[in-house]
């Protein structure tokens, strides 16, 4: 069965690009443009992976949504996308080294993300989740 990915980004074009790239790579993609819509979707289905843009309606919408996803589905991996690097010249993890633990994202990537980078990261995160899940069973 195809793995389901939820993508949340308020830029229509980036959403469309990620959707095409990941659909072509064989995933089932559900894409929404904001936190409120994402919350609705999350009640309808459980994705295998979530990709969240950090800055949407609010500067930290991605964090908030990440926390909510963790509460609902503790085991799904989260990939957080930020545009911070370009504005500050620093990578996000260098900017907030302590953030990794409380952000609740499995991976943080600076935008723009290249297609093969996105495919690789998604593949790796799903693999890790599958391995962890297998261990428990």
């Amino acid at each position, binding site marked *: 069965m195809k793995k389901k990915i939820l993508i949340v980004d*308020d*830029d*229509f*074009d*980036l959403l*469309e*690009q990620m959707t*095409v*790239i990941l659909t*072509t790579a064989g995933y089932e993609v559900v894409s929404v*443009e904001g936190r409120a819509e994402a919350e609705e979707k999350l009640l309808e289905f459980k994705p295998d992976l979530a990709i969240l843009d950090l*800055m949407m309606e609010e500067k930290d919408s991605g964090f908030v949504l990440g926390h909510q996803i963790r509460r609902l589905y503790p085991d799904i991996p989260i990939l957080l996308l930020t*545009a911070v690097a*370009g*504005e500050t010249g620093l990578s996000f993890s260098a900017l907030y080294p302590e953030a990794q633990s409380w952000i609740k994202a499995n991976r943080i990537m600076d*935008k*723009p993300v*290249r*297609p093969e980078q996105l495919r690789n990261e998604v593949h790796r995160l799903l693999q890790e989740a599958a391995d962890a899940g297998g261990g428990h069973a």
Partner: protein
Amino acid sequence: MDLLNILIVDDEYGMRRGAERALRKMHLHLHDINGDVSFNIRTAADGREFDERMAEEQPDIVILDYKLPDTTGLDILDRLMKQPLDLLVIMITAYASLDTAVTATRRGAYDFLAKPFTPEELRGAVRKAARHLILQRQARRLAEEKRQVRFQFVSVLAHEMKAPISAIEGYLQMMRERAVGETLADYDHIVDRCLVRIEGMRKLISDLLDMTSIESGQRQRVIATVDLGEIARQAVENVKAEAARRGITIDLDLPEGAGIEADRAEIEMIFNNLVSNAVKYNRDGGRVGVRVQEVEDEIRLDVEDSGIGMTPEECQRLFRDFSRIKNDKTRHISGSGLGLSTLKKIVTLYDGDISVESRPDVGSTFSVVLRPGSANASR
């Protein structure tokens, strides 16, 4: 209410008591900032006590005697001036010697008082120093706020400018990968989206320039009689091709010979912006109504459209910098989020208002009221 700390440094007991008594009950009202000031007085008899008082709490104003038993007033003055302390020094010179006063002022004292002086002279000097200090602090605070606002604006601007670049970059990468097919036609949609984003970026830059020219105050405003009919017809002319292509009709309702004492470029921005928005955010086959009315000393402009409309919450956000309503209906429309916030700044130059009434999927009416009599006074 501001409370300023005064420290009196003098070796004569009578002098310290006298000064304390003269200042203790003093209150100051600053008309220009509508603020009240009162004073807290402390004293020191020599250099050692001065150090102790400084360690307790930093004063705002130091009244400093020139001659002290264990040091000199000038030494203390030098020490104070070496550090970037936010305080003023009033030097007390023992003899009415201009030399000492000049030396002290040159080394950083704000003012000086020559002994003997009356309580009223002392209060006068303190009043002057307090006023200077408070206004200076106020100016610094405002400058700091301005820097903050500017920093925030530039941060958001950088984010807004990067977004279309990222989008176009992403599409180019998909094209390089042949992500959606082998023929050029497979990429029509991608090319269209890139063009929409480039158009958005161009709009952002031109709106930014408009806004900067209004805000800078550098632009020479030329107040003259402006023919509103001509400007309205030109605004309609600018969007005619786009309106015709989408089957949108535009009705103009103008009183004969309507005019206004105003800066032409500013009035053009108002009309062009509202009329082009009314077409952009309209539905195909819709209509736009542009109506100008002269009511006593006011000019009223209403631009009505039969477009996508907005919710009350969306209307509230509309006039802020970079505020854009993002939804399915606005996706293909280029906007910077700066146009209406710039109009808002323009109408305040005419002591006017801009407002909107809107219903989703029915349409919006933007109304501008200008009071041109005040056009000159507001700058």
